[in-house]
């Protein structure tokens, strides 16, 4: 009896509940449906929810707890010889028992005590499944009975159902908060450890980033320096270059698609451009490193400029291309949603198409467009591969787009992926960087929200 079987049975029960609830509502209405507070199908949904939801919640709880409960019972039933092992060893014994119980390949001849334990384990799981089935069924039936009882014309079935939906919607919104909490928690402890090794002041205001600390104890004496400023300026530089490329290209593409292009062209160009967002970043990385960077270098040298072979410009431009669809597609949708009557109003005054677009359509679409652009900025800040491959890892403090720079994200990724040592400031600095980046963007977002709210108060 698998998970999907349980869920399928539950779905069937809920459907039955729906039908019963609906017909019951029709009956209680006594022929005049308008006596019902809600449309009959809401009564159906009401019953279906009562049938399905409690059983579903039980199922979720049960399946998440059953494993450890059964394990605990098997563990306590083990013969004394096994039970006296250390927790680690018992863990291993449990692996053996599981492997035996599920008929996996095992490599040693099983000990009879283990075989009994495996049998016992199987037995318990069997009971557990049976009990779950019975309890779920009982709960579903109770729900059905209760909900059906309550059906009468005055029952606000729609409101009840909508209350459940509303709770669901709120829960969905809270996922964002939970994710944030999860991220902060998974960064915080290591970051604190980092800040006990490197002072926050040095980290936040230091102008030199070079995490060249030792991997072997006998190796490098010099501590790495952990001044994150070059990384943040590098991030800013590359993201700005990317936006300088993506915003005009994306916005103008969006405008052309939604305002000028015939529907057929728009219908094809838009999804085609969206492919840009789906090309794996490795491909962009190779393109940036092997095509764009040498090109920038050659052009730069042709102009007599000193260009390093890894330049922020190359990485930024390619990143800009990658995020074009964020701006173009989202803006296109928003522009397309601006009511025609506004355009008519402008044309009626003798405005040209471009004047209409720039002065009426775009301002009307601005909140949505800003959303798309912010999304694109975010993506640019979070991108790793292109920068690693084309702009290098050297954290120079420079505002010159022809220099090699590094970004926060890149350092986080290389620090986490590279060779690391427990507790070395080098490895932990990834968490410090992550947390600070998180905080900085959070601050920026709060400011952005305030600005947007001000703007909204004025123009909503």
């Amino acid at each position, binding site marked *: 009896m698998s998970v999907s079987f349980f869920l399928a049975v539950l779905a069937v029960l809920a459907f039955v509940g729906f039908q019963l609830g609906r017909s019951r509502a029709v009956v209680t209405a006594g022929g005049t449906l308008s006596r019902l507070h809600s449309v009959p199908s809401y009564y159906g949904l009401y019953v279906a929810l009562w049938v399905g939801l409690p059983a579903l919640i039980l199922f979720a709880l049960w399946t998440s707890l059953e494993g450890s409960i059964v394990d605990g019972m098997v563990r306590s039933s083990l013969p004394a010889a096994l039970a006296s092992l250390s927790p680690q060893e018992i863990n291993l014994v449990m692996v053996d028992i599981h492997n035996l119980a599920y008929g996996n390949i095992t490599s040693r001849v099983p000990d009879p005590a283990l075989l009994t334990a495996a049998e016992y384990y199987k037995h318990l799981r069997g009971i557990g499944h049976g009990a779950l089935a019975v309890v779920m069924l009982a709960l579903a039936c109770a729900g059905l009975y209760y909900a059906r009882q309550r059906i009468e014309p005055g029952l606000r079935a729609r409101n009840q159902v909508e209350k459940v939906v509303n709770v669901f919607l709120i829960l969905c919104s809270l996922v964002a908060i939970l994710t944030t909490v999860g991220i902060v928690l998974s960064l915080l402890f290591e970051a604190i450890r980092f800040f006990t090794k490197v002072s926050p002041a040095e980290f936040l205001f230091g102008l030199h980033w070079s995490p060249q600390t030792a991997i072997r104890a006998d190796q490098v004496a010099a501590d790495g320096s952990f001044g994150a400023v070059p990384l943040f300026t590098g991030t800013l530089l590359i993201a700005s270059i990317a936006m300088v490329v993506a915003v005009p290209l994306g916005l103008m593409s969006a405008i052309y698609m939604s305002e000028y292009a015939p529907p057929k062209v728009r219908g094809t160009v838009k999804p085609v451009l969206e492919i840009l967002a789906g090309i794996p970043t490795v491909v962009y990385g190779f393109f940036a490193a092997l095509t764009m960077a040498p090109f920038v270098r050659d052009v730069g040298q042709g102009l007599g400029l000193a260009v390093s072979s890894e330049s922020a410009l190359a990485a930024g431009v390619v990143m800009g291309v990658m995020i074009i669809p964020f701006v173009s597609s989202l803006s296109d949708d928003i522009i397309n949603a601006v*009511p*025609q*009557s*506004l*355009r*008519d*109003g*402008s*044309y*009626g*005054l*003798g*405005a*040209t198409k471009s*004047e209409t677009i720039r*002065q*009426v359509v775009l*301002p*009307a679409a601005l909140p949505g467009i800003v959303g798309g652009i912010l999304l694109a900025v975010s993506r640019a800040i979070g991108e790793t591969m292109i920068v690693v491959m084309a702009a290098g890892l050297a954290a120079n403090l420079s505002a010159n787009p022809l220099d090699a720079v590094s970004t926060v994200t890149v350092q986080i990724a290389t620090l986490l992926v590279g060779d690391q040592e427990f507790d070395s400031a080098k490895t932990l600095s990834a968490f410090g960087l992550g947390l600070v980046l998180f905080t900085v963007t959070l601050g920026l977002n709060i400011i952005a929200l305030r600005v947007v709210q001000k703007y909204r108060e*004025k*123009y*909503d």
Partner: protein
Amino acid sequence: MTAQTQIGTSAVAGADARSAAGILAGAANKMDAKQVKVYYGAKQALKGIDLAIPERQVTALIGPSGCGKSTFLRCLNRMNDTIGIARIEGLITLDGQDIYDREIDPVQLRARVGMVFQKPNPFPKSIYDNVSYGPRIHGLASRREEMDEIVARSLQRAGLWNEVKDRLKEPGTGLSGGQQQRLCIARAIAVSPEVILMDEPCSALDPIATAHVEELIDELRENYTIVIVTHNMQQAARVSQRTAFFHLGDMVEVGDTEEIFTNPRDERTQGYITGRYG
């Protein structure tokens, strides 16, 4: 008929009896429509309209809902170009020039032939920006004060100034229905077009505001040519010199307003007018 299409201002002589009868001495045809047919997809909305619009007069278009008044109005400044499925046939001239000619620039045309729409459609900008928008794109003011002056005067003429003079920076969309309508009128007259097309400009207005707009129309008439769609017979009678009666996509009758209201030739016109008068 062909002569008429060549030189608009001297077209009076060539105008057919029906039209000529209604034109006051000295007035010439500012615009002229010949056999204008409009289709929305397969549906024909106008079935061949012939109508001359005399200069510096107010022409009223009346007729039952859905008969094609707005459609005709939108033909006069090529606003129908923006409706994908609309197709237009026939000839419309402004000062004797075919406005659907390739040579003609719809932008210039619409600057010369302004429009107030049936549903008020203020831009989601401030009240000030709503009105200054047109003058700005046409470069009618070179300095800030000039623009302030244009905005203030337009709002005054539309009868909205007193209500909004303290909230010019607030969004135009936060106004009441009637206020929005007057805002749209102010916006249209701010660019001083030669011809102003008004699609039921007073439908959302109270009597006082209506009277105000009617005065405005009367005043504008001295310099501008005005075409107004209205459902209000009294209004048509009060403000217009000429009236055209539309019915099911046809123009049934056109003539001197007094004539039309007192002595309609077509019985459909009679029915329509008396349907209310009676």
